[in-house]
């Protein structure tokens, strides 16, 4: 617990963070110590700006910058065998803090343990694989990743899915990351054996805390000035919030300031906590009053007497209606998800085509130097792109897209 205490991390964390823990570990375990000694340091100094957007199914929710919490030159032997839970929390805290984009005090890196744990493939409903892509990671990938982070500027967006090993797939609408001008450091975790245990126990959850900055249009400078920060809550953060509140004696007794202090999340402001606490109190108060048995019994007795005309069958009808309602809702949701992924595909395809078109134009301009070959090359590339997209299209839309393509070729 020494590590935790060094940085005053709250231990009031839920236990549902092993997944995040392992994700980060897996990522970092792959990298030899020597690497961290050099370019890792570069990263630290460069204050790489980035922002993780919480996407429930997105693998990037597992990714976050982990705070460097040890001084330079700390050797692996000196790492105390930390028990599973505290290191869980430590880790999770790290991620929460760092992903909320506030300055961390540079304190060097932990050395990596020499052994490497086997990552378990991590997937949730969104079907995004984090760890499997991590397995492919080599030093060069990390370098690319780091370079991209360093060189990112406002509005640009490195292709996270590519960086993390996923093919640039239109089926992956969740791989969205926003970049903003926020100081950020890439840092490393500590500990060793406990992590292996955690990996074995990991649950299929993604955790991330995200702080989204309001951007109106492209006026990022204006929004930064107004500092109107929209906090995007996650179930995990909320769980932590609830634990903190309970620790402080319940929603009535807890004060925003105390909760804020307990949460230790630099991205969280007292304003956020205050409004969230208010919502929380309201949410708890309403159902609790209606659940008060005395009150509800009275209500029920009254209504039963009033509805004497209703026969038994009604309740069955009503529950059937509930079922129907649920079915319709499910269907709508299904269709919404399909529609969304189609829309993303369309946009992606559009971008691709635009790119190819521009490329072709470029080649046309260079026609004088490369003579007759260029138009053919262009066509070839174009066809490749088209074909590539054909292969990626879902069955459902295949025919539709194919017919569109034919129409365009005419």
């Amino acid at each position: 617990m020494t590590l935790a205490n060094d940085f005053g991390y709250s231990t009031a964390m839920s236990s549902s963070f092993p997944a995040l823990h392992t994700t980060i570990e897996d990522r970092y375990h792959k990298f030899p110590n020597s690497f961290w000694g050099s370019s890792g340091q570069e990263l630290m100094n460069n204050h790489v700006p980035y922002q993780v957007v919480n996407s429930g199914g997105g693998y990037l929710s597992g990714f976050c910058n982990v705070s460097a919490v040890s001084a330079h030159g700390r050797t692996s032997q000196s790492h105390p065998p930390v028990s599973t839970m505290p290191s869980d929390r430590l880790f999770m805290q790290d991620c929460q803090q760092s992903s909320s984009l506030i300055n961390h005090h540079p304190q060097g890196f932990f050395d990596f343990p020499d052994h490497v744990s086997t990552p378990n493939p991590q997937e949730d409903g969104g079907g995004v694989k984090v760890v499997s892509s991590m397995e492919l990671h080599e030093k060069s990938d990390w370098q690319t990743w780091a370079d991209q982070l360093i060189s990112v500027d406002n509005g640009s967006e490195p292709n996270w899915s590519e960086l993390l090993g996923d093919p640039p797939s239109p089926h992956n609408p969740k791989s969205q990351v926003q970049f903003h001008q926020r100081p950020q450091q890439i840092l490393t975790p500590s500990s060793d054996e406990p992590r292996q245990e955690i990996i074995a126990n990991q649950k299929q959850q993604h955790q991330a805390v995200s702080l989204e900055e309001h951007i109106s249009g492209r006026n990022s400078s204006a929004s930064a000035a107004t500092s109107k920060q929209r906090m995007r809550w996650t179930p995990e953060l909320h769980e932590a919030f609830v634990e903190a509140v309970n620790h402080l004696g319940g929603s009535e007794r807890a004060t925003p300031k105390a909760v804020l202090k307990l949460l230790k999340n630099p991205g969280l402001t007292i304003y956020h906590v205050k409004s969230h606490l208010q919502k929380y109190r309201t949410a708890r108060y309403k159902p609790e009053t209606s659940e008060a048995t005395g009150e509800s019994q009275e209500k029920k007795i009254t209504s039963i007497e009033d509805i004497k005309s209703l026969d038994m069958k009604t309740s069955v009808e009503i529950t059937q209606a509930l079922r129907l309602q649920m079915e319709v809702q499910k269907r709508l949701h299904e269709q919404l998800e399909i529609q969304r992924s189609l829309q993303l595909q369309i946009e992606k395809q559009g971008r691709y085509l635009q790119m190819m078109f521009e490329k072709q134009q470029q080649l046309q301009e260079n026609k004088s130097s490369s003579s007759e070959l260029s138009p053919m090359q262009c066509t070839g590339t174009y066809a490749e792109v088209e074909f590539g997209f054909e292969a990626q299209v879902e069955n459902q839309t295949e025919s539709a897209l194919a017919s569109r393509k034919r129409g365009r070729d005419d």
Partner: protein
Amino acid sequence: MKFGKRIKEQIQESLPEWRDKFLRYKELKNLISSPAPAESIFVGLLNAEIEKFNAFFVEQEEDFIIHHKELQYRIQRLVEKCGDNDDVMFREEVNEIRKDIVNFHGEMVLLVNYSNINYTGLAKILKKYDKRTGGALRSPFIQKVLRQPFFKTDLVSRLVREWETTMDAMFPALTREVEGYERSAAVSSAAAGEGIFRNTVAALMTMREMRRGSSTYGAYSLPPLNLSDSDLVLRPVHVPSPIPIPY
């Protein structure tokens, strides 16, 4: 034209607090039809709309997260209280919770729908703008929209799916319950769920309509909706009539 009508219908059917949070499609269309639609004004309006979506969406999401947890606790407490005991006394509460789950699920789906319909509206209005002005605003602007918080519905979708699973687990015991004093709980469920139900059906109808071939069907159009068996659900749409609760 059709989309404008559809989104209007959706707004009408939507939950009251939501009604002024949707895209002001008609107003934007009018702006475009005006003699000299200024890009700066148009973009400014769009940005304001996007900001509106983001604020509303994130706030709703936060509420959902809180409610999600509370509902979980409620179920947990109920399970602890009665376990597998099928005692009639608990059925009341079980029904209450079921109703709440279905309505909660519905609200979340409607939020996803909200996101989608606004996105679709933006895409359409941008297309209209480019057509009218010969500009190329659509593509870069839509790229920006894709990165907005309101478009990122993954978390809500995830919660939706979780509750579907939970419901499947909770509903099997349904048919065995025909108890007298379940009425009161069941009665209220019809009334409360109706608003959500109507909205949901309206949303599905809109989607189906939108996805039928249009005159401007092109490279950026969505393929027709595949609703095969859910047509059976939608066609004889029988919205459960509100059971009057006498005063």
